[in-house]
């Protein structure tokens, strides 16, 4: 009778039972919930910074990603006419009004990075149609002299162009035909794309990499707590154990991703196709959990799993981000191999051909199948679970020859 009951239980137990146990265990852990909400507070902080960052670079005349170095370099300026010094960018260079001898001493002694000398009669020279001869002294022992030199050169070019246009107009007052430059720009600027699209897509994928510890705990923890024996003695296959544990993590991740997407939408981020974005991120979590499970299944303890996970995640992040950057610069079809590319295109509202979706889904499916197959094969081996653990070469040989263990 007991045997029959046992047989019945054996038939009934599925991977969903494992999923339910693991998921409940995760949600019941107070510390996990604290970390979960701390992660969300990090997201809030990121949103604030992100918005300030975008506003800052959009307000710049030339959009670029450079630090806002208040008073990074300093420059003495002697410009009685005041014609020139007003063009110096005060965000980077602190302008110190000075006289010739003091200013030159300051620059020679390294107190300021440079000294700009503008002749006192510059305004009259301009009015008389004469060339203004400016001199910039640079303290070349200071690396910031490049910044001062660059700033003064671009300032001289702006002033030159402005006066040239004025002088040309006054030299030919009867010429009423004003020149016109019709300037148009196509596409969003690269720095803005990197900030708006790449940063947002990284933010959306971040939860996938934050839950590696749960997988490690779920798999390696069984070995360290010596509960692996009980687990494999249960009426459930090794494959179902792995799938059940992975499903629980996928559920936790989907909960976090859903919350992040909702928060980002509420914060005013333009995320087109939010449902598809969510689905593709969750689909991406499957191969990532698979790879993490392989690392966890092979590792003896938390420490080893930590090393393996660090290396694996560096590679995964690289493989996800590089195609995104390639897509931004080249719009290549192959860059859709990374699900990050398709998610970025989805939330940007691009029209995506079915072939591009197919490539992404194919890459997700291939990596998932391979990683889960390896994880299950590893988990089925007693020597992996209870030792002595075989070497990597031996394992690879057994896997490629489909050796039954």
């Amino acid at each position, binding site marked *: 009778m007991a045997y029959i009951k046992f047989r019945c239980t054996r038939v009934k137990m599925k991977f969903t039972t494992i999923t339910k146990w693991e998921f409940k265990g995760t949600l019941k852990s107070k510390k996990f919930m604290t970390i979960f909400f701390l*992660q969300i507070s990090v997201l809030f*902080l990121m949103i604030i910074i992100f918005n300030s960052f975008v506003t800052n670079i959009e307000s710049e005349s030339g959009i670029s990603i450079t*630090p806002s170095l208040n008073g990074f370099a300093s420059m003495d300026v002697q410009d009685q006419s005041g014609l020139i010094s007003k063009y110096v960018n005060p965000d980077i260079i602190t302008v110190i009004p000075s006289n010739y001898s003091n200013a030159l001493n300051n*620059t*020679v002694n390294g107190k300021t990075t440079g000294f700009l000398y503008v002749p006192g009669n510059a305004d009259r020279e301009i009015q008389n149609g004469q060339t203004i001869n400016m001199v910039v002294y640079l303290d070349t022992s200071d690396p910031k002299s490049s910044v001062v030199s660059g700033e003064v050169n671009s300032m001289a070019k702006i002033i030159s162009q402005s006066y040239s246009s004025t002088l040309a107009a006054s030299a030919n007052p009867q010429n009423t035909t004003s020149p016109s430059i*019709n300037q148009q*720009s196509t596409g969003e600027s690269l720095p803005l794309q990197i900030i708006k699209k790449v940063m947002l897509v990284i933010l959306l994928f971040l939860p996938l990499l934050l839950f590696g510890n749960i997988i490690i705990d779920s798999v390696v923890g069984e070995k360290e707590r010596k509960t692996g024996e009980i687990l494999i003695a249960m009426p459930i296959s090794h494959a179902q154990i792995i799938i059940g544990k992975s499903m629980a993590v996928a559920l936790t991740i989907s909960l976090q991703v859903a919350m992040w997407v909702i928060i980002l939408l509420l914060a005013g981020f333009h995320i087109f196709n939010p449902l598809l974005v969510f689905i593709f991120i969750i689909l991406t979590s499957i191969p990532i959990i698979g790879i993490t499970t392989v690392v966890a299944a092979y590792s003896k303890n938390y420490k080893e799993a930590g090393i393996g996970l660090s290396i694996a995640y560096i590679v995964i992040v690289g493989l996800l981000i590089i195609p995104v950057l390639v897509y931004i610069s080249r719009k290549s079809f192959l860059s859709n191999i990374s699900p990050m590319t398709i998610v970025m295109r989805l939330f940007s509202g691009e029209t995506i051909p079915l072939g591009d979706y197919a490539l992404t889904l194919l890459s997700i499916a291939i990596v998932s199948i391979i990683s889960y197959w390896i994880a299950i094969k590893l988990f089925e081996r007693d020597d992996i679970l209870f030792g002595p653990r075989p070497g990597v070469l031996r394992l690879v040989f057994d896997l490629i020859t489909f050796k039954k263990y």
Partner: protein
Amino acid sequence: MKLTALTKKEGQDILKNRIYILVVFVQVFILLGTFGIALASSIASDPVLLDQYGATSVLKVGVSDNIRGTELETDLVDQKLQLIYYNNISDAQKFLGTTLVSVVDVNPPGSLNVSVNTDSSNVFYPVVSTKVNNAVNEYQLQKKLESTGLNATQIQMILNPVNLQVINLNQNHQANLALNSSYFVEIMYGFIVPFILLLPFFLASNIVTDSVVGERERKTFEVLLMTPISSSMVMLGKILPILCFSLIQSVVWIGLLDLLKVPIYNPVLIFILLFFMGLGFIGIGVLLSMFVDSTKEANSAITIILVFATFILFMPLFIKTSYFTPILNYIPTVIMVKMASTPKINPIIILSALPTILISLMIFVFTIRYFRHERAIRL
């Protein structure tokens, strides 16, 4: 003597840990990678450097066949742009964003009406845009001046009303820079240098939590605290090797940056600042260790704290907001930027490091006192 033994043991533990050694090597890759990116992006965004390195074949501009032999063509060629000719300008427009970075057209031919269409998503957009604008402005000025009857000298004066002479001082002690570019100096000193020098202290927070929580997990903390050594000394024995490990890394990174021709000035002052910041980072790590039960929890919590620390330390470097300005000069990363890039440092900058030193010391002292009170074990 006992303190020395504990310090030695902790030091050996750090050096034997493969994760820590791996992270040290990862930092080398980060340093070399960020340096390479800064170098490449500086060249790609600077017209003068791009001309200097002869990489102008990528600056492709589509033009109509009818500009052949005109002043506009000469001006565009003078800017070292690679012109690709099309019978019809609409053909050129089709390649904008793929082969071409910009399309320039004059309609009707020979007139002053120039239309410029540029792909701003291209990596070389800033350079091409600057060069095309220079060429078009020059063309339009020349065309206007042609009809005025002015002589060549007068035209030249109008075209170049400002003459800038550059005089280099202190050339005997010239900064040995990898690239003489404004952007390179700004991005290297303004972000990458403080980022690289602080990386070891992010690692230090992790090591200290591992060390304290690890003792509790292995149930060896009781034994350690029962030894005839004060709890402050126990803490010092754990902290000293971690602090030294981080400071040594930072010193090595300073040397490596010097080798890469990014000279770091005032290394002693930076070292002192890093020492106190290290105490702050380690103090936070110890404090956190007293509230968690396992290494796993400690790692998750310290990651989140370090994310906050990154924002506090690095975001002020990129945000221009008026409400940040009064405190900007007291943020340690900003002080580090000024120290690292200035050969002769202003004493006021040194004084502005005092709040950082005081806050770090307060965190550290509070941690030690709390540790003595709680003894961090909560058996």
